[in-house]
Structures are given as structure tokens and as C-alpha cells.
């Protein structure tokens, strides 16, 4: 392999030396369509990376154009035109509307390619699709739009994390999030914001979304690389797919300013129907326990903790250019309240993009700066709450016949393990501030007209601090009722947590392009990268503050000496890579793309420092732009090996940490620890029929091997994370699936356009030859210690449910379960079964409609998931007869159920529900007024109305079937668990934007 690579390098170097220079010039002009000037049209010197885009008025200017070059004009929804320059300096073009989406230029790793020339499975979302979705987070834009990309919201909290899965899960323990590359800088995985501490059994804060720092209005395009032939150029980080985000650049021509603002209103969607005080009182008496009615009336949990949340945003951008430079600056402000009181996010973003040509236009210097400051305000709504519940739990279980306030205005206190939700809401404060700067500077040197050298230096710095406290006078088990050192009453908890990350990226890329002949062209690339990721965090916590102290977090030394805890950690990871790629076009219709990357990491074992990640993609265009029923037909095939870098630092090191004076072992060494690798192959077809129906079909097959796992049980090697030997397990994780996407241009004329798009993805996964039986999907709540719902085991899909089968109640109200032999039995004889049900859906569909009538545009998006099952841990923990008769509220059907008071809420299929749903996710209606009607200063005016989450069709009884509370056990994540997650919202937004 090494020798072959060397030969390849030599060949490349030989090629590099054969370039020659020709006279070059600047070409400018205007691009029009039937509807007027076209902004945003891609103008590229064919066969090169040299390109630009038209401005708002359709003007463009492009430098370094050889006199004999061909300019390629492309834009979504229009036929691409190739225009030979023939020595001209002004070229005006009229593009024909055509919805020719196959000819989009898509961003790939370290370059771009025409979608029609792509050999892999790549999906692109353009700015237009991004701005029409009212989302606080760029990743949400992908939801339902890209076949094979599943976005699951883990929480409805503003800024909360999303699970993004590209073609399913490729790992058990090493992370399944795709690599995100912003303007050529690959981001490190993991959370940049400070999480919360576990507040005495009430759970800790869930992670935040890693893409929060980007303002959606700054995004030009999002491209998703799904197959290995596309992602293998990112080698050890490509196994989970790659999402490439390109920010907007300055436009050429007169300075342009755009201001947009929006205002939105959100409320909780699908609240769980709990009993009212009247219903509770009635059921208490019907159940022979009138004593459960404590007399108060009017409590409604929704009023207690939810609200109509307002969202306001302001965005201002300026774009201008000089002779040699283009600049775009933007400022964004978003104030998003959460639907739970006292929660929300304020986000400030500033971005700067500049490109500068210097030294006789031989050097292009690009600068990108994205900065953000996010202030999060959270409440105690967390995934790991026990019997006491969190804010949501206590609001649900609060007996509605208890008052919230006593007559004297003080809080009514029921007990230290039975929390007053309003008191909890007002006694808990949790504020996090996260500042992040992602800056890159990248000079490109045009060494010859065929050879470019590009250097990228990127810095990603973030700092986040979180301060949370539970008031000193709040009654809570193990927190209140203490004393200070001098014996005064004390309580409360304070928690400080800060995280600092400093990541550096260095990329060196040499590209070579040559059209050797009509029948052979080559685009080759050689690169070297170095990444350094530094992570640092500190925490401090204290308990037992004098009850008179109000502000705990800013005066934490008020806590009791003996109950102080602090911790700190710091680590640096390094990654070094060598990579090469060749893209060849043979006889105009055979496209070959081969890449090879060597990745070295400090995290793998000493003997396995470097991994080799090769890939090949081949595409054959059977028809291209034919004037026949079949306009385009391309078949694609790809094969590649990719890795997964998202496993813990020090995984292969033996080390210890001092703890309370002693030195404790924290990790064992394994010099042979190697990357988890995923071998992929896939085939695909892209087609366009009858000039109006385009689409693609993909089949893929992925095998992940060498799964990294803390070595269980070999002697002297404990299984608990943090003090284990990490090993590569035998066995494989297999994913197979297929994806279909279709776009139909129903109508397209001067006044009307309408297109319908749909996509569907089907995915199966299974463990093969896997020696272990791994538990995950931990179930929380009283009497549920150590309970779990899911397993990962041989010959089973990931996250298969393993539960007692519940069959109803017997005459005495005791649950009937299935025994091992299938007969009916009581709880004592119940036997857990491996169910043919998994937490992962196997079918994802998306459907959208886009169109316009004159200046009115509209779009609608729907999506759904099928085949997955949800374990309703919320119901398991809180909803059963004993809970009702134990003075807690439940939904009516649990109060009226024929269940005995003493029948335990043992985990079973009683709480396993289908997670199928279909959602009307988004409706947008916009009206745009163009320059001619607006006088001299205003170019464009747009009004937009959008509604989100208009309805969801589902049988699921919890808040929302689109849920994924991470109930990991020993670092093994779960899927499809629902436990007291922050509910999703629905609402609408009104927007206005003005272009100057």
C-alpha cells in the first residue's frame, strides 16, 4: 500500500510540473431570467475552482479567466449554461428555468463538484430552503429534507441538542454524530457548553446543540456527504457522515444591506392530559380514598409551568466589494423564550467574511470569522431524575387538590420528596454563558493555472460557564434541613461549571486540474492536516447555605466547608493526516473518484497510530441532457473505509488521578487499540425523466468493526468507564438500507411554479458475531433502580427491547405477565423476553411542497418516522394506580384502571408504545416586492408568515413521539427512551426583511 501511494505521489508531482500559463482576464456581466435578474447564480470557470456568484441584481465579475475558458452558469431550478469566453470581457446570459437540480454545484470535502458529476451520495440544501424554515438551529433545516438523515430533537428547550444520524448508527459507544465542517474547518466533536451537575437525584442538564453558534441567516448552503466515497477524505472522522456548512460571502457590485426581523409565538404541543382537581377529587372518592382530596381547586400543571413563549430576532447584514476584495458582515440577535417558564436562550452572533486578491491576483486570501455569545437560562428539566422527579415530574404528579400557596402567601410545602412545582420553578436558577469564536484564514496561491496551493489555519475557541443554584430554603431530601458550621438552619445547593476549548486546525492542500483532452480530465488533490483539540473544565459545588443567603452561586463560600466539592480536568488530543484524491472524467461520461487518507491520532494505541482509509467512487452517465423521456440517467457505485474518532481521550493510556490524597487508577493501557472502522459499499441512480421528474435511489451496506469498548471482565479490568482497558471487540454492526428521493415539477410558467418533493429512507441494522450482551436504556424513577429496557446483543438490531410482557390485570387488579413458558403469571414469575421491537425507527419519510404565484411564495414540509418503539419512562415512573392512591396525580385512565394499589409499576410492555408519527412540520407563506416598485433606496421587501409543528398524527401517549432522552448505561447510549423531556412546541412566526 505504501509503495503504491508513493507511486501515486510521484505521478502527481510529474503532472504538477507539466502545467503551462495562458493569458488571463476578468469577465463580468449580468444574468437574467424570464422573471428578471437572477441573484446567487454560480459562475465558475469550467474545470476549476475559480467561481463567483451573481449579486442581488444579477451582476457578476470573475477574475483570472483564461481567454479560451468556458464559463459555467448554474442555479437551482435553471438549466446550467456553458458559455465559451472567446476572449470577451463582458458576457450576459439568460438562464432558462428548468428545475435542473442535478446540475447544482455541491460542496464536497476539500472542493466542489457539479452534482451531475458526483460519484457519491450527496445532498445539498441551499440558502432558500434554509431561510424559509423557522428554526433556531441550522441542523433542523435538514429535518425531513434529506433521505437517510434523521434528526431527532432530544428536548424542546431552546438550543437543546439534536441527534443527527446519517444512515443510522455506526457505533455503540464512540459517538454517532456526523463530522461538521464549517467553511473548511472540521469541528471537534462534543459539547462546547457547560453541562449542569446532578442536583441530588434530580438529574443533570442535557447537552446543548453544537451548531447553536451559527446564525441561520449566515448560511449559504448545507451539504451532507452520506457515502464512504465522499466521506473517506475525512478518514477517521467520516464514519457518521459529514455535514459541510458554507457561510454566505460578499457579493460584487454596489453595497448591499439587508435587515430582517421576526417575531414568533410558541406554546407546548400535545400536553399530557392529567386529571383536574375536580376529576381527582371524584376519582379519590370513587376509589374509596376521599382523604386524598385535600380541598383545593384550580391547579393545572400546564398553567403552573408552561407559557406562551415569544421569540424575537433581528439580523443585519452588509455586503460590499472593492477592486480586489469582497466582504460580508452580519450581526444577529435572537431572543427565544422557552415554553417552560424561566427558560430560554439569547444569542448574539457576528460574522465577517472577506476575500482579498493580492500579488497580481496570484494569491487569494479568505477570512471567515464567526462569533457568538449565547446566554441560556434553564430549569430543572433533566433526563436522570429519580423518585422526586424534576420540574416537569413534580408538575405532573402534584396532587391538584393541594394548594400551591398557603393563605399567608408562603408556599405550601408537602414534603422534601414531594416538590411544589411552582416553588421549585422559583427556587432554581440556572444560567450558562457560552462564547465561541470560529475564525479561519486561508490563503490560496495560484502557482500555475493548473496548480493551487491552499493553506487553512482555523481557530475554534469557546468558553462556557454555568452557574446553577437551588435556594437555601427549598425543602428537598438531603439538601434542606442541614445546619451551617455554627448551627444555623441551612440548605440549598450551588454548582459552578466552566468549560474552555481551544482547537486549532492546519490544512495544507495542493490541487491540480488539467483537461488533458476532450476525453480525459483530472482534478487531483494532495493534503496534509494537523488538528489539536484542547479541553479544560472546572467545577465547584457546595451545599448547606445559611437559609438567609439568597445568591449562592456568586458567594459560594457561604456553603458548609465539609460539603464543598471541586474537580478539574484538562486534555489535549492531536490528529495528523495525509490525504490524496483524484477525480477523473473519462469520455465525458465515466467519472472516477479515488481517495486515500492516512490518519494518525494520539488517542489510539501506540502500535496503531495510523489508520488507512481508502475509497473509490465511480459514476457512469448513461444519458445526459437528452431530449427524450429519459433526460438524465447516471449510475453510481462506491466503496470505502472510514473511521470513528469520537472515543474518549486516554483510551489507550495507563494513568491515574489523585483523589482525596490517594492515587487511583483511571485507565489501563492498550497499545493495540485501533480505530473503529466502517466498510461501506453502495450503489445509486440519479435520474431525470420527462423534463420534470428527477430523483435518486441509493442502496448501501455498512459494516462497522473493531467496536471500541471498555474491556469487560477480563481480570483486573473493571467495566466501569474511566478505569478500564479499552479494546476492539470482535463482531460487527451491520447497517443496510435504501433511500429514494423524488422531485416533481408540477408546473412552471411565468406566474406559477409548483414542485413536490418526497424522500424515504429504510434502514435495518443488526449486530453480528457479537460476544456481549450489553444493557442500555436505563429506566429511572422510584422502584426502578437498575432497571433497563434495551439490549445490544448478537443477531439483534441495536436497542432491542428486553422486557416483561404485560397482559393486563387479573380480577384482583394485579398485573398479569407472560411466564417463560408463555403462560400467564404474576410479577414474581414473569420472564423477560427479547422483543422484535427496537428504539430506532426503520423508516423515515419526508415530503415537501414549494411554489409561488407571482410574488407570493409558499412551502410546506411534512415528515414522519415509522417502525420504532418508545419506552415511556415518564408513565412508568409516575402513572400507575399506586401512585394515584399514594397522593399523586395521574392521567384519568390510570386512576380508573382496574389496578390494585400494591401492584408495582414494574417495567414491562405496558409502557412500550409505537413511536410512529407523521408531522406537518412547517408552512411558510412569503410575499416579496422587488426594487421597481419600492423607489430608489429599497431593493426588496419581503413579508413572511411561517407556522411550525401544525399537527402531528400519532398514537403515542406522551408529550411527543419525536423524543430521545439519552438513558445511557456505562456510556452506551440508548434510543427511543422518553423520560420527563422538555416538551416540544408549536407556533407561528411573522417575519419582515428589507434589502437596500
Amino acid at each position, binding site marked *: 500500500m505504501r509503495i503504491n501511494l508513493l507511486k501515486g505521489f510521484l505521478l502527481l508531482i510529474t503532472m504538477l510540473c507539466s502545467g503551462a500559463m495562458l493569458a488571463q482576464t476578468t469577465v463580468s456581466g449580468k444574468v437574467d431570467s424570464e422573471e428578471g435578474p437572477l441573484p446567487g447564480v454560480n459562475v465558475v470557470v469550467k474545470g476549476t475552482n475559480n467561481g463567483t456568484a451573481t449579486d442581488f441584481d444579477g451582476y457578476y465579475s470573475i477574475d483570472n479567466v483564461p481567454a479560451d475558458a468556458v464559463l459555467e452558469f448554474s442555479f437551482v431550478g435553471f438549466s446550467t449554461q456553458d458559455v465559451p469566453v472567446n476572449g470577451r470581457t463582458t458576457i450576459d446570459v439568460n438562464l432558462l428555468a428548468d428545475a435542473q437540480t442535478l446540475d447544482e454545484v455541491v460542496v464536497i470535502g476539500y472542493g466542489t463538484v457539479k452534482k451531475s458529476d458526483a460519484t457519491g451520495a450527496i445532498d445539498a440544501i441551499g440558502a432558500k430552503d434554509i431561510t424559509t424554515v423557522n428554526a433556531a438551529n441550522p441542523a433542523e433545516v435538514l429535518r425531513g429534507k434529506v433521505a437517510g438523515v434523521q434528526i431527532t430533537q432530544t428536548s424542546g428547550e431552546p438550543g437543546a441538542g439534536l441527534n443527527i444520524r446519517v444512515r443510522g448508527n455506526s457505533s455503540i459507544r464512540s459517538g454517532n454524530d456526523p463530522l461538521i465542517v464549517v467553511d473548511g474547518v472540521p469541528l471537534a466533536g462534543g459539547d462546547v457548553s457547560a453541562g449542569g451537575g446532578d442536583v441530588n437525584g434530580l438529574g443533570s442538564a442535557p447537552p446543548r446543540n453544537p451548531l447553536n453558534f451559527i446564525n441561520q441567516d449566515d448560511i449559504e448552503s448545507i451539504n451532507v456527504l452520506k457515502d464512504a466515497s465522499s466521506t473517506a477524505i475525512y478518514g477517521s472522522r467520516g464514519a457518521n457522515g459529514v455535514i459541510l456548512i458554507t457561510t454566505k460571502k460578499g457579493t460584487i457590485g454596489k453595497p448591499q444591506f439587508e435587515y430582517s426581523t421576526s417575531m414568533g409565538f410558541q406554546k407546548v404541543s400535545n400536553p399530557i392530559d392529567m386529571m383536574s382537581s375536580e376529576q381527582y377529587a371524584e376519582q379519590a372518592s370513587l376509589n374509596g380514598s376521599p382523604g386524598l382530596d385535600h380541598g383545593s381547586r384550580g391547579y393545572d400543571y400546564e398553567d403552573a409551568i408552561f407559557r406562551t413563549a415569544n421569540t424575537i430576532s433581528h439580523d443585519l447584514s452588509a455586503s460590499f466589494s472593492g477592486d480586489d476584495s469582497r466582504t460580508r458582515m452580519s450581526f444577529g440577535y435572537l431572543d427565544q423564550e422557552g415554553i417552560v417558564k424561566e427558560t430560554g436562550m439569547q444569542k448574539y452572533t457576528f460574522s465577517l467574511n472577506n476575500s482579498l486578491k493580492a500579488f497580481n491576483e496570484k494569491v487569494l486570501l479568505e477570512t471567515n470569522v464567526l462569533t457568538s455569545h449565547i446566554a441560556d437560562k434553564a430549569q430543572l428539566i433533566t433526563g436522570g431524575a429519580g423518585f422526586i422527579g424534576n420540574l416537569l415530574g413534580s408538575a405532573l404528579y402534584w396532587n391538584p387538590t393541594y394548594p400551591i400557596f398557603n393563605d399567608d402567601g408562603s408556599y405550601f410545602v408537602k414534603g422534601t420528596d414531594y416538590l411544589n412545582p411552582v416553588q421549585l420553578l422559583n427556587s432554581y436558577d440556572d444560567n450558562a454563558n457560552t462564547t465561541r469564536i470560529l475564525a479561519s484564514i486561508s490563503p490560496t496561491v495560484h502557482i500555475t493555472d493548473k496548480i493551487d496551493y491552499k493553506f487553512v489555519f482555523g481557530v475554534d475557541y469557546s468558553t462556557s460557564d454555568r452557574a446553577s443554584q437551588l435556594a437555601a430554603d427549598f425543602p428537598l431530601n438531603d439538601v434542606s434541613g442541614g445546619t451551617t458550621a455554627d448551627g444555623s438552619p441551612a440548605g440549598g445547593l450551588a454548582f459552578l461549571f466552566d468549560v474552555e476549548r481551544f482547537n486549532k486546525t492546519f490544512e*495544507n492542500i495542493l490541487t491540480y486540474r488539467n483537461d488533458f483532452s476532450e476525453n480525459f480530465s483530472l482534478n487531483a488533490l494532495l493534503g496534509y492536516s494537523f488538528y489539536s483539540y484542547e479541553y479544560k473544565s472546572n467545577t465547584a459545588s457546595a451545599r448547606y447555605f445559611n437559609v438567609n443567603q439568597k445568591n449562592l452561586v456568586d458567594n459560594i463560600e457561604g456553603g458548609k466547608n465539609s460539603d464543598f466539592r471541586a474537580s478539574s480536568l484538562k486534555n489535549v488530543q492531536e490528529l495528523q493526516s495525509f490525504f490524496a484524491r483524484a477525480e477523473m472524467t473519462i469520455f465525458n461520461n465515466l467519472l472516477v473518484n479515488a481517495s486515500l487518507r492516512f490518519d494518525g491520532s494520539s488517542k489510539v494505541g501506540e502500535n496503531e497510530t495510523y489508520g488507512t482509509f481508502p475509497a473509490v467512487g465511480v459514476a457512469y452517465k448513461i444519458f445526459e441532457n437528452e431530449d427524450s423521456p429519459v433526460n438524465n440517467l447516471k449510475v453510481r457505485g462506491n466503496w470505502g473505509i472510514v473511521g470513528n474518532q469520537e472515543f474518549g481521550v486516554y483510551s489507550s493510556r495507563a494513568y491515574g488521578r*489523585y483523589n482525596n490524597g490517594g492515587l487511583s487508577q483511571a485507565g489501563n493501557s*492498550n497499545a493495540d487499540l485501533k480505530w473503529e472502522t466502517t466498510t461501506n459499499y453502495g450503489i445509486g441512480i440519479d435520474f431525470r425523466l420527462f423534463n420534470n421528474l428527477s430523483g435518486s435511489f441509493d442502496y448501501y451496506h455498512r459494516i462497522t468493526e473493531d467496536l471500541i469498548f471498555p474491556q469487560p471482565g477480563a481480570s*483486573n479490568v473493571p467495566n466501569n468507564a474511566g478505569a478500564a482497558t479499552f479494546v476492539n471487540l470482535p463482531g460487527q454492526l451491520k447497517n443496510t438500507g435504501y433511500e429514494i428521493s423524488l422531485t416533481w415539477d408540477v408546473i412552471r410558467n411565468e406566474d406559477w411554479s409548483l414542485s413536490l418533493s418526497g424522500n424515504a429512507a429504510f434502514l435495518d441494522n443488526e449486530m453480528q458475531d457479537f460476544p456481549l450482551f*450489553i*444493557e442500555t436504556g436505563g429506566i429511572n424513577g422510584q422502584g426502578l433502580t437498575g*432497571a433497563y429496557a434495551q439490549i445490544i446483543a448478537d443477531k439483534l438490531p441495536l436497542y432491542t427491547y428486553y422486557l416483561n410482557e404485560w397482559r393486563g390485570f387479573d380480577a384482583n387488579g394485579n398485573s398479569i405477565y407472560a411466564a417463560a413458558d408463555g403462560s400467564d403469571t404474576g410479577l414474581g414469575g414473569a420472564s423477560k423476553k427479547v422483543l422484535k421491537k427496537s428504539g430506532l425507527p426503520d423508516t423515515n419519510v419526508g415530503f415537501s411542497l414549494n411554489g409561488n404565484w407571482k410574488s407570493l411564495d409558499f412551502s410546506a414540509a411534512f415528515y414522519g418516522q415509522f417502525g420504532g418503539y418508545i419506552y415511556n419512562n415518564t408513565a412508568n415512573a409516575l402513572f400507575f394506580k399506586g401512585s394515584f392512591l399514594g397522593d399523586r396525580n395521574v392521567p384519568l385512565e390510570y386512576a380508573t384502571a382496574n389496578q390494585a394499589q400494591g401492584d408495582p409499576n414494574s417495567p414491562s410492555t405496558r409502557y412500550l408504545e409505537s413511536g410512529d408519527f407523521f408531522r406537518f412540520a412547517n408552512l411558510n407563506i412569503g410575499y416579496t416586492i422587488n426594487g421597481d416598485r419600492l423607489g430608489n433606496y429599497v431593493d426588496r421587501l419581503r413579508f413572511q408568515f411561517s407556522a411550525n409543528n401544525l399537527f402531528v398524527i400519532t398514537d403515542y401517549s406522551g408529550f411527543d413521539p419525536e423524543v430521545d432522552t439519552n438513558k445511557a448505561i456505562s456510556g452506551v447510549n440508548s434510543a427511543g427512551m422518553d423520560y420527563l423531556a422538555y416538551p416540544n412546541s408549536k407556533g407561528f412566526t411573522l417575519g419582515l426583511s428589507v434589502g437596500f
Partner: protein
Amino acid sequence: MRLDLNKLRNLSFFTAGLLLFTACTDLEETVIDGVEFEVANTEYAVSNANPADLLASAYTAMRGPYQDQARLFCLDEHSTDAVVGPTRGGDWDDNGVWRQLHTQTYAPDHGFNRDTWNDIFSAINQANFVLGASPSPQQEAEARFLRALHYYHVIDLWGSAPIREIGSDPNASAPVLTRPEATAWVIEELTEILGNLPGGNDATIANKNAAHWLLAKMYLNKAVFSAENPAGPYNFDNGDMDMVIQHVDAISGVSMAGDYWDNFLPDNTQTSSEIIFVSENVGGVASGNVRSRWFMGQHYNQTPSGWNGFTTLAEYYDKFDPNDERILKWFPDVTEKNGYNVGFQIGQQYGPGGPGVGAALKDRPGNPLVFTKELTLITGGATLETAGIRGVKYVPDNDSGDNADNDFVIARYGEALLMKAEALARKGDLAGAQTIVQGFKNESSTSINSVDDLLDVRARELWWEGWRRNDRVRFGKFLSPVQLKEYESDPKYVLFPIPAAALANPNITQNPGY
């Protein structure tokens, strides 16, 4: 092609840049926030860590497995007639883990079986690091004692024992010793280190007395550990029994405590003359979960609010005279602050102040808080919260918050003497055994007419101290019916299953039947 000087200059600038950043890194990972152990190609050959620091952590690593109620305690006591964790409506179902222990229906996915395995091997590993760090002879002996103690539990609970020797290939799967091989190995280890262990009776460190005690324990159980069939029959060898006697007799400087409860006070190690070895706790600072020994059974409405969990069984309680001080003791301080007796609690319970002073407590639905002998595995009705006799094994430390001061007793002289009595009895010297037994308070009139009579003596003296399973196995009673498990269990349950995840080591085979 015309050469442009400007271009050349720029080129050289960027080439320099390229070289600057292309200087390859060796990708050596540096442990910044800890101590990287400089291991060569041999595991545990740690050259840069202070062995004293590692040893300190080897001691604290015992707190989890030995003190927590959901580790050794639950495997050793719930699986017998001494403890049961009844399911109380929505409380203590825990997906059946407690019921499975008592009804002897555990399987390889049993969570606390797995956690105990992990914690024990974690402690073993910590001891091994001491051995790899060039310890002094005494440090080495202490670490090897701790390791031997942990392996006693591995052999006792799971049979075969994966043992990775210092200096073995760190990346090979650990070799596994059979149960008899591991037993011989532990005895050999203890015999070798005896000379280097400190004398005296500081029970917080491994000492000579502790090693003699553990050797006696190993010889006493050797017949069990080397039986062809783990469920018996066991052929006790007189030579082994002589070794038991010899090692118990070698224990010096300790004596029976004046008061049984001295062993379980917050300052027990300082007060009691009987304690041989403990897992040490530092009150208010750092402790294991010894407080579970009074929280786990106490009702929510008792003080402090407990967990309303585990109980003993009537047939176990009935082995005692109800007034036996070992299960009924009123400490004025505890009565005042907690309102209850230590030992077993039965009948009406009271708030701080105790009977006649404190309030007669009620359960949460309002029924009188009366702990009863009547008990079902899944409670219900009016006695949902109150069924079952509760136990308080350690005298509550009301002054140290979450970090109770009571050291957790692993070995005490009384237990060693009962081992000697049993060894004598197994050799046929029932009179000698009876003499020892009658030296115990509240056993002065106990007669020993057969070896089996000693099982109840141990049940009384050592209640909830973690020996019940081991004793019942050795006396051939472990699988017999007990209250709330009214059947003879399948012989496979005499050993716990190897946790499912541990089978990743191909050298380990699952215990027969699982």
C-alpha cells in the same frame, strides 16, 4: 513560462509556511490532568507513581464493594433467609433485582451481580498497580493482602477467577484459574506475605491478624472451593481444619468486645477491642455507604427518613431470643435523636424521643407504623409500607451527614472464634466447639450437638455481616427452602452467574446452567 520574481517571493513565503506547519508531530498523547503510568510492555510495571499514594487508593477502593447495600451485601445476604427486599407497590420493584436474589432466580444480566464483579475487580486492579510501582516490602504485602481478600469473594461468589499476574502481556485476555487453583493461589499468597505485614492491631491497615483470619477463612472453605460439584457434597479435611485452628490461634492482641455494639459504633475501631480489619470511613469527610445499614430498612417517616426497603424474615428473627441484646439495644443518644432501637425493629415505631416520648408514627397513607412479621414478596393492602422486620446493624452516626464515621467491619475476632469452633466441630470436637460458643454473650446455654448447630450460632452472632450465604453454602443449606422461597433451588444457583459482559474474555466460561 515567464518567471515572476514577485511570484517566487510569495511562493517561498508560503512554502515556508507549509514547512512550518508540516513539521510532523509524533502524536504522543500526554496525560495532563493525571499521572501517566510509565508502563513498558508489561502491565503494572509503573515506574513513576508513588506506591504509598496508590496503596491509599487501594484501601479506599474497598468502600464501594464492601459497604454499599447493592454490592457484596445484597449477594451475600438477600440470597438467604436473613434479608429480603420486598416490592412495595411502586417502591423497590427495581425490575425484580431484589426478588431474584431472594428467590434464587438470578441471571447473567443481574445488575448488582455485575456491579459487584466490576467493583471487586476494580479494587483488585488498584491493588495490582501498587505491586507494579516498586513498593516497599510492607506496602507490597498490604496490597497482596487486599487482592487476596477480593479474590476470596470472587472464588466464593463466582467460582473460577481470572487472574492477571504482574508482568504478563497486558493485551492478552487474562488467564483464568479454576476454583481449586485460585483457592490454592490465595492461600499461597497469604502465606508468603505474612512475614512482611505489620503486627499490632491497627484494623484500618492490612496486618498479620487479618492475614491469619483470611487464611482461616480460606482453609475453612477449602472443601467447598475445591468440591467437584459446587453444590456439594463437601469433604472437609482434618488437616485444613487444623490450619483454621492454627491461624485463629495466631491472631493476637485482640479480644471479644465488652459490648457487642462497640463493634458498630461511629467510633467502633477506636472503641472495640475485637476488630481485626475494616474498610475505613472518615466521618464527615469521606465514607462508603455504611449508612445504608440504618437507612435501608427505616420507613420514610422515621428519623432520619429512610428508604423503607429491606427486612429480615420471621424465621430468621425467631432464631433469637426477642430480648437478645444483639438485636434489641437502646442507646440513649439514638433514642433521643432517632427514636428507635438498634438491632431488629418490630412493632410500633416512634419519632425522636422513642416510646413514651416521641410520637407514635404512622405510614404515609396514615396507618400506624407497626413493623410486622407477616410479609409477602410483593406487599399490598394496609401493610404495603409496614410489613417486615427492619434492621439497624450500625449505630447511626447523626453528626457526620452523608459521610458516616462508622468503619465497616470486615473481620472481627468473634467471627474468627466461631470459625475455630466450627473447625473443632468438623474434627469431631463438639465439646471444644461448645466451649467457645458458650463464651459468647447470649450463647452461654447453647449446646453444640452437631456441626449444624453452629449455623444458627453464626446466624445470630453475625447477622447482616455478609457471611450468611457463605455459611449456608458450607453447611449445605444454601439451596434449601426459606421463607418467601418455599422450594429447593436448582443447584446452579450455588454460584452466581458470570456477568454477561465479562464473557468478552474468551478464557472465562459461564458457570454451568446459566
